[in-house]
């Protein structure tokens, strides 16, 4: 059963960028029958996208892991009920959205403190090694953007991330979150304006570190 092969996703693609090949369909059908290996393959295909979405939705990295794993637990429990009426990506995205929007009861995900999380920028940047400084700058930038995103309402934040990480249209975002296209468009406009004002004219790229 575990011999089912699957196409690997390209780097920096969201869930929607992954083509649903015949192999993948077979993989999903095998996982539906309770095959753990097939399910692991599904995680290796879609897992990183879900994790990155969670990474920008949550404030702390440990919350992102917890939340994205919660998504996969739900997928595992309800995969047998997936009826192929929509694509697997669409179905998975629905679970992601529901899990994310229902996660805020967790105390660790609530807003605490005001300090900017630079995401271990200093730890991960290996000074003196080629590219180490760029890694640090990228991490500072990512931390600054996450900090700005954190102050957006949950739905607006999620819509903004879906727009830019998954590349969904306003209409697709509206369908996923169960609202009209106009509502999705308005929410993303507000989120963009908010981030624009928080990050300044450089769009947050002025990290204060000399390049």
């Amino acid at each position, binding site marked *: 059963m575990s011999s089912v092969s699957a196409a690997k996703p390209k780097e*920096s693609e969201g869930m929607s960028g992954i083509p649903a090949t015949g192999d993948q369909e077979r993989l999903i059908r095998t996982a539906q029958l309770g095959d753990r290996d097939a399910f692991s393959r599904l*995680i290796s295909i879609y897992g990183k996208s879900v994790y990155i979405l969670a*990474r920008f939705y949550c404030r702390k990295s440990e919350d992102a892991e917890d939340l994205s794993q919660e998504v996969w637990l739900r997928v*595992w429990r309800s995969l047998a009920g997936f009826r192929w009426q929509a694509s697997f990506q669409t179905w998975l995205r629905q679970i992601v959205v529901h899990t994310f929007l229902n996660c805020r009861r967790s105390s660790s995900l609530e807003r605490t403190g005001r300090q900017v999380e630079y995401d271990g920028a200093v730890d991960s940047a290996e000074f003196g090694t080629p590219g180490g400084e760029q*890694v640090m700058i990228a991490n500072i930038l990512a931390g600054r953007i996450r900090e700005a995103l954190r102050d957006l309402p949950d739905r607006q934040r999620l819509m903004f991330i879906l727009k*830019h990480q998954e590349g969904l249209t306003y209409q697709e975002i509206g369908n996923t979150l*169960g609202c009209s296209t106009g509502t999705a468009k308005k929410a993303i*406009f507000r989120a963009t304006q908010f981030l624009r004002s928080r990050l300044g004219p450089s769009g947050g790229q002025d990290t204060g570190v000399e390049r």
Partner: protein
Amino acid sequence: MRRRRHVCGEYAGRMVDLINRELTADEEHKLSDELRACPACMSELAALRSMRSAFQSALESARPTDEYWTGYERRLRERIDAAEGQPMLQPAAVWRWPTFWSWSAGIAAAAISVLAVATWLPRDRPHGPVALVGGQQQTAALARPAPPPLHPRAAGRRSHRSSGILARTAKAVSSDHPVLDMLMAPGPLPLLMKQHAESVRIFLTSVLKEGGLSNSNRVRARFLLTQNQLIRREAEARGDLANQEQLVRLEPVLLDVVHMGSTGADAISEYLQQRIRDEEPLLLVLGSPSGEDTPQ
């Protein structure tokens, strides 16, 4: 012809649409022309583009390393292992196989026991393999293992079904669930469907009237979702594809209502109105609406 005066504020929305790639090529071209004449707008557009590109870079930097991902997958497998004990939504095929194999194992074990006992029994015993069960002799034909224990309610009315759905239902619903009564009623499935559809319709109408989800409605939503899943499985077991299909359409609506607990009342109302409009024809066909309660 006089050219319309440029007002920067009027372009804010379209600039966001532009960086979000929501405009057609023509619209993009036209907007770029209009913005080119205004340095303030060009500067604003540059800032928006810069923000977008910063976000894309941030997405790239958030990609987990291979080392981290290996640990992540291991921890996830552990969580799934730990959750295995919880009830899962399983298709009928997955239910049947373990049951078949465990029965086969039981039959094989019983047969071996019978043969072993028969080999060592004195010759003056009756011919043919025999087994000692409860201190009394029984023939091998009775060695078939007992079926799995049923839910107390199911056990009393087993004669109504031959599809095995009751055993599965009893296993799926750990506590007393009123839907068991519905499922075990001798009536035909369409009647059951009608009652269920009417319950769903009345429930959705009351949610709309209340403008949100009260605690009792949330409990009701979970109940109706379980009921929907059970009846769907029953339809599946009977090979009733038409009814199964309709229940499959209802299920996401109920699932969404259950999961919309933390969203605002407005969002729920808006969402439900849209979904009910979509599914109303189905509910009207299945249930027998009493006009007044029809969702608006």
